[in-house]
């Protein structure tokens, strides 16, 4: 049998099936709770959500399947140097300090639904709107695709079906469930399922700690094993090199600024019912990397000590491999793995559904409504948004299945890197623009174009990689210079 498969019995599969049916029921309740057929009701749940729901939706959305699968693989390969993940997840919350209070207040006053609404309010420029829309749609599409690929791989690890068949089945079944509950209940369904998924995710991380410590002993023993190993093992517990430290700093800036501008996260700032609820949710979020990313890093390091010699492609499956060993150990281990698998599904689906809802809202409200059919009613736009979700998923699922057949597959972490390099180019427009009126639309637009050009121009450049900083940061510097100097010159013009 393939060693990366966790064979679930009828009981385990039954629990997973029940969980998925539960998500559909939540969608149905979300539909019953709707107050009106409007974009605001469908995409932001009308007046919004309170503290607990907001916290769990932020949590479930921010911690994706990549956190558990991709991060553990990365920690396996690089060891404790991947503690950078704890740092960059904290830095996202620091990023919010820069603009969330003002943005929340403006969103309530001017009834924003999508992030582009802020750009439109601030700059009144079609060019800025379209550039912002393009970057956010590309980043969301990228993220959604990564979740769909991870869904296929999750099912591959569950059954003894041929891998490609299991992958296709995983993508189609899970994406269809998301589509059904999201079409039924919109943002309410997404948030309420996030509450369930976020809770299971928290339980899953606790289960992960228990089962790994129970199986492999203390972290101290693992570290001793690595320190006594060959140089590549020792490197996993020793401090990072100068280049890795620069990369570390780069990650902190890239995530702090880039990931805080995730469109689905911005929509959650809009959806906070009160400022106090938003404050409290973000304050708790500042500590959650210690209960998520940190645990995953420990798991990756433990895997590196106890399952050495995995090849590069296998390292992303380290969590599955550990689960398989634990599951075979005892009945209790078996059920812990079932809970953990439900948590992984929750992490994947909660991120995918948020991306999908935000994508459909942006395409419908920011593109179709202003440029295709300005006279469309709210009901028609809401209906179109639902249709849009189905089209997006069909296209993305097709792409995920196609990519899975390729020999050279993009790894989850590579996908993750690209979207932040793009999103960070929106920093002048959002983060600077919300604090000063001195920034003007044309230089801001030009800055984004220059920033993206520099970013993609330097992408994969060996000298840039040797320094350690992400190409998006060079792009951001160029972007800020163009936006700042350009706005200064525009103001000086007679």
């Amino acid at each position: 049998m393939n060693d990366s498969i966790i064979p679930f019995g009828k009981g385990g599969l039954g629990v997973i099936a029940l969980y998925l049916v539960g998500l559909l029921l939540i969608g149905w309740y979300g539909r019953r709770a709707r107050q009106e057929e409007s974009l605001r009701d469908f995409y932001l749940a009308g007046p919004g959500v309170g503290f607990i729901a907001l916290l769990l939706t932020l949590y479930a959305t921010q911690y994706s399947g990549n956190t558990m699968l991709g991060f553990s693989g990365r920690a396996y390969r690089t060891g404790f140097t991947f503690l950078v993940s704890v740092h960059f997840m904290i830095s996202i919350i620091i990023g919010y300090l820069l603009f969330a209070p003002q943005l929340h207040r403006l969103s309530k006053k001017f009834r924003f639904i999508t992030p582009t609404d802020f750009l439109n309010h601030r700059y009144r420029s079609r060019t800025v709107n379209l550039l912002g829309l393009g970057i956010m749609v590309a980043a969301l599409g990228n993220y959604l695709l990564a979740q769909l690929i991870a869904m296929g791989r999750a099912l591959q690890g569950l059954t003894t079906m041929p891998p490609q068949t299991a992958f296709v089945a995983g993508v189609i079944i899970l994406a269809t469930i998301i589509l059904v509950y999201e079409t039924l209940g919109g943002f309410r369904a997404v948030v309420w399922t996030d509450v369930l998924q976020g809770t299971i995710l928290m339980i899953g991380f606790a289960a992960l700690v228990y089962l790994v410590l129970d199986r492999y002993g203390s972290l101290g023993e693992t570290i001793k094993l690595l320190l006594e190993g060959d140089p590549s093992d020792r490197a996993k517990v020793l401090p990072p090199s100068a280049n890795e430290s620069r990369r570390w700093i780069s990650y902190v800036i890239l995530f702090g600024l880039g990931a805080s501008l995730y469109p689905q996260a911005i929509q959650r700032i809009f959806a906070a019912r009160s400022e106090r609820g938003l404050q409290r949710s973000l304050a708790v979020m500042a500590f959650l990397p210690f209960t998520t990313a940190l645990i995953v890093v420990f798991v990756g390091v433990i895997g590196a000590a106890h399952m050495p010699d995995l090849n590069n492609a296998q390292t992303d499956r380290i969590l599955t491999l550990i689960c398989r060993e634990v599951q075979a150990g005892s009945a209790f281990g078996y059920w812990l793995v079932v809970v953990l698998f439900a948590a992984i599904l929750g992490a994947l689906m909660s991120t995918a559904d948020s991306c999908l809802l935000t994508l459909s809202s942006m395409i419908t409200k920011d593109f179709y409504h202003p440029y295709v059919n300005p006279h469309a009613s709210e009901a028609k736009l809401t209906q179109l948004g639902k249709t849009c979700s189905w089209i997006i998923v069909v296209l993305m699922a097709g792409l995920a299945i196609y990519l899975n057949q390729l020999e050279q597959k993009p790894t989850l972490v590579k996908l993750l890197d690209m979207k932040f390099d793009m999103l960070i180019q929106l920093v002048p427009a959002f983060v600077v623009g919300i604090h000063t009126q001195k920034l003007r639309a044309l230089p801001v637009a030009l800055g984004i174009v220059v920033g993206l050009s520099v970013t993609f121009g330097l992408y994969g450049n060996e000298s840039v990689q040797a320094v350690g900083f992400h190409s998006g940061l060079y792009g951001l510097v160029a972007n800020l210079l163009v936006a700042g100097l350009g706005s200064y010159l525009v103001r000086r013009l007679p």
Partner: protein
Amino acid sequence: MKRTATKEPPNAYLDWRVWLAFLILFSISVPWYWPETHDQTLIGIPLWVLVTLSSSFFISALTAWLLLFRWPNSSKPEDDANE
């Protein structure tokens, strides 16, 4: 086209002392200053890992404190009434 005025209260988070505090904490928590061969452990964990995690915790605590007690133009108590 004319821009829309966005008059907002000053943001306490933009105070330079806040960012100096973050800079100091990040300077300690990013392990740039440890020799690459440093293998000293404390309670079985590499010392540099413990220092990084401890200072990261302080970064989280500072962030949470700012969010809860230095939120610009903090919301009024009645904001919580509908929760």
